[in-house]
């Protein structure tokens, strides 16, 4: 579809998702790209590839998302996908302590083996499972139209909101613990739910903000070198929104081809 249009001002950012099997990597991507959730998502074989645009202030980022397979034995394939990545989302499952350990080892590997400037975010997924039965209304916006308002309304530290403590027993990774680790390793940190959409947009938006866009623009000489003083992002009237692009609206979504 709109293949021609995406060329102009957008900056391409390669982002890779890593994490233990079944923590919800593919689901996060599906939420981000199509604002959709499938209860039974097939495991990713090798890796899946999707794209999504993300508007940030006056420019557009085009995420090229590599969603990798989580099972340990696919580990040796991962370098193929994270090479040259500018961003990584390392996902764990808040209801599974072991998945955080795996996430840590991914972070370690990325920090040593991947692109040195890579922006890494830690995402504790399946937040909905540890919240009360009536979750806070999904912050996941209705993408397409909203330009101005509240997508940033609940960044980061949402979870301590009015949760019914009933389900809190399922939680195996306390927020503080993960937050402390993330701070120590200088990672962005979010708790998310691909199911409700909570935290998903924030996750990708915050990553976008941290990407040294000008740096990328400068290095890819093709993008008309608009030397941006706009680099001082994060301030002012931030506008954002996610545009569904061609990949997202396709009927045969996210097939792992």
């Amino acid at each position: 579809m709109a293949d021609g249009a995406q060329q102009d001002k957008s900056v391409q950012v390669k982002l890779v998702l890593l994490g233990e099997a079944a923590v919800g990597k593919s689901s996060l991507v599906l939420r981000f790209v199509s604002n959709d959730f499938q209860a039974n998502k097939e495991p990713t074989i090798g890796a899946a590839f999707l794209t999504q645009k993300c508007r940030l202030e006056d420019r557009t980022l085009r995420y090229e998302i590599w969603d990798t397979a989580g099972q340990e034995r696919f580990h040796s394939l991962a370098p193929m996908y994270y090479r040259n990545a500018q961003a990584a989302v390392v996902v764990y499952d808040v209801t599974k302590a072991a998945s955080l350990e795996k996430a840590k080892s991914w972070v370690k590997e990325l920090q040593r083996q991947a692109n040195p400037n890579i922006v890494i975010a830690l995402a504790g997924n399946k937040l909905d499972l540890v919240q009360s039965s009536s979750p806070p209304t999904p912050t996941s916006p209705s993408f397409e139209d909203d330009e101005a308002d509240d997508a940033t309304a609940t960044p980061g530290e949402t979870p301590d909101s009015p949760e019914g403590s009933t389900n809190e027993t399922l939680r195996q990774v306390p927020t503080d613990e993960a937050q402390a680790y993330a701070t120590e390793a200088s990672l962005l940190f979010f708790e998310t739910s691909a199911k409700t959409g909570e935290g998903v947009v924030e996750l990708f938006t915050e990553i976008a903000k941290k990407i040294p866009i000008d740096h990328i623009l400068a290095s890819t000489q093709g993008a008309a070198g608009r030397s941006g003083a706009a680099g001082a992002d994060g301030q002012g009237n931030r506008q954002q929104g996610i545009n569904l692009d061609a990949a997202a609206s396709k009927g045969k979504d996210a097939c792992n081809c």
Partner: protein
Amino acid sequence: MSTISTHLRKIREPNKDEQLRQSFALTPAPDPVDVDSQKYKIEVNATLSLPQESEEEAYAGRLYLLPPYLAFHSLDRKSTRFTLPLCTIRRVERLNTRTGIFALSLSNWHGMKIIVQITSLRPTADLFCAHLRDALKLELQRGQMKAMKSFVKTCYSETLIPDNTPAGTEDSELVQTEDVAYLCGLGVKFKFPGDPKKLREASKLKLWATYFRTHGRNLTLLRYPQSTRLVQVGLPNRLRGEVWETLSGSLYLRFSNPGLYERILKENEGKVSTSTEEIEKDLNRSLPEYPAYQTEEGINGLRRVLTAYSFKNPELGYCQAMNILVAAILIYMSEEQAFWLLEVLCDRLLPGYYSPSMHGTLLDQRVFESLVKKCLPIIHDHFHEVDVQLSVASLPWFLSLFINSMPLIFAFRIVDCFFCMGPKVLFQVGLAILKINGEALLEIQDDGAFIHLMRDYFGSLGDSAHPNSSDPRTRAITRFQELLLVAFREFSVITEETIATERKQFRGDIIHGIESFSKRASVRNLKDLGNFTKDQAGLIYDILYKAICVVPPPASLQGGSGSPNSGQGQVAERPETRIGLATFKIFLSEIATWARDEKIVSNGFQERVDREVADHELIDRIFFFWDSSRCGALSFQDLVTGLNGVMFNDLMANIEWFFTLHDKDKDGFLTKDELLILSESMLFIFRYEVGDAYLGAVSRFMTNAFEYGDAIHETERLKTSGEAESEKPQELGNNQPYLNLATFRMVVLADEILESFFETDLTASFQLQSIPDGPLATPKSGFFGGLLSTIVTDDNVKRFHKFSDDLGKTIGQHQVVHRPSIGRIDRPIALQEPKAREPLLSSTSPRPSVSSASSSTVLATPSNSTPSLSISPPVPEKDVSPPEITPLYHAAAAAVMERTPFAIDDPQDDDDDDDDDETGEGDTHNPDDKVMDEVLYDCRRTRCG
């Protein structure tokens, strides 16, 4: 956390026999129950024909008796082929034809006749017949004919062709179609994917029925060119499972292992393992849109097949993608059928694809890339230029047989061809995909665009390939048909041999890559490197790896898997590799000079160093000392930490290390026993030092230590109780705290030799050297097999050494000298009279006169204690003897008190030289020509009515 696997080292190319069996869809090695009958193995040249067909339809080829199968392939190895279980043969007749022609007519269970004309020389033909007769008899005795009768009823083709004996021979019994319960897949209940009308189910079934009537079915199927064509147009849904089974050969496995699937399930009921947990995660994620997998029935079947296989093949366990494969297969076949098909897939058709290292996947990706380079160089170059990796798209194609990439109906047709023509199909189709999309591919600039293009292409497979053509028939050709056409027409040059050759070429690289990757990961995952650099840790890893190759750690040490109360989510994905004592000895012998026995052998032809692993309590002690988690096994981290604790020490730290090593209860005191053991340890380390200096030092050490110990205890006692004098000094048991670190240190420092030992020599005796034939050495080209090949050469080297030693002995030139572990003192005489540092000692020592423990007369004069010890200029030993340090030991130990002598086991007591050559009862059976002339074997005679 690191898992170290050496199984890649064991991979080897199949030998000729195995290749042959595989080409007939049989397991590489015969079933254990059939080992006996292998004596009937024989092959002849033969021509195959069917009575109802014309002369031209005869195929020259080769006929093999591979009990319990009779197999044939035409000369081109592809036109015709069969693999007949002997039990399906009812009758063998020698045909009365023109003279000089030796032809057999075989009638099979399905009432069909085939004629094989044996064109080998007459004696060979006779022998073949004799063997065939005997092998048939054996099958009958085993009751296989009976088993076969009920087995074939599980095949749908029996229902398709109800009449058992179309030829209408006297056999035609009443067919009991009623109780026939053929096995079927979920599709029968939950519908098959695709529109049966569009797929032309009915006419396809009819064509197959015709084929089955003339060419046999299930166990008796003959593979003629028509069958390949029928497969290429797509199998009918109801027949698909059975034909997959037959073409892949999993049918034979199911036939020869009745009930095994159920048994495995039963035996492992309720067991939990890493694999079962991984399977559990994916059950709801396997073709979720297919209705059956939204029901318990479908999910349970999937669970059972995957779990059963993970228990059958625990080394492989479960790999994602298998769930998708099995879910797909189960649409067309029953659980048991799927189980055996999965076995064939993992074992033979997709070898190494799903193994923990996925080496087969990686290898075939490399092969595919190489084929692209050869067949589609322009695309390859473009990809190279824009840095696009082929496997980002192609890996899932291979791993899930396109099921995950294409719409199901198309993927299954590729799977049909895959089972029919073998793994080369995946490469042919892959190449065709690239070729068809060639122009568009040359436009792409990055991985992402490549993936997009492929996804769009797969989405359009149902469209017309020539939408603008005026000819409606051309327009009717779908892009999928075009794909198959290109795959099989234009890439017919890709044969099984091509694949085999390519795999051979790249396997070494791939294994090297995987191993260095896991090495890097292991080093990276170390929680604590200590003072080691990463490179040094890498060396430790190499040495560990080598040790594991020699003595693999017992499976029981690999914790994690199967632990019952692992708590949800707590199971590590792969258990950490831990080594046992036996492996550790080899490991340490590569590092510590005293943990090995090195003999310098010269025999007049060569001078060489023979190295053997030493054995001593000291080594065991270090093993348990380093076992931080007290589980009787050491991890890579334990070894690094352990070595770190001794390899960077100064004098004081080494003294403490050695002391603590021997202080079993870690209370800061050595008992008397421990003190003796410690002395033995030193003697062990010094066992090959030249001259008496070290022996003297240890002797003095013992004397002093006991004098001190006693003196201290004397004063202690005096201090604590005035009356103590009346008590006997023996009250202190041999296993009570006796000597503390300070005193030990003092005693050590009183001796120059020991001081220098602890200052530098001990640390220096640990050496990290890169392993020349190490596991990670670049693979020698054309010489795959890494360790295996070095073992082979090692053997040859050993043989050569023995040979030259024997020669040397006969000419009196054979000399063996032990290489010292420290080697600081190379000239025995040069050593000044070993003198203790009197001033240091006497200044603090109260010098008690009596010592209960030591009567040190022998020790006091170490220089003349054992004349045999003064090996001034290395005295040749008469023969290669097991490492002995007895003179040293006896001198010292006898002097102190009687202790159980520590024996040095001969470390090399498990020579596997015994080639038990079971020259068998290979007596060739007298071919009984008389019988041959008539009926070779008539099963009907013994058939139970």
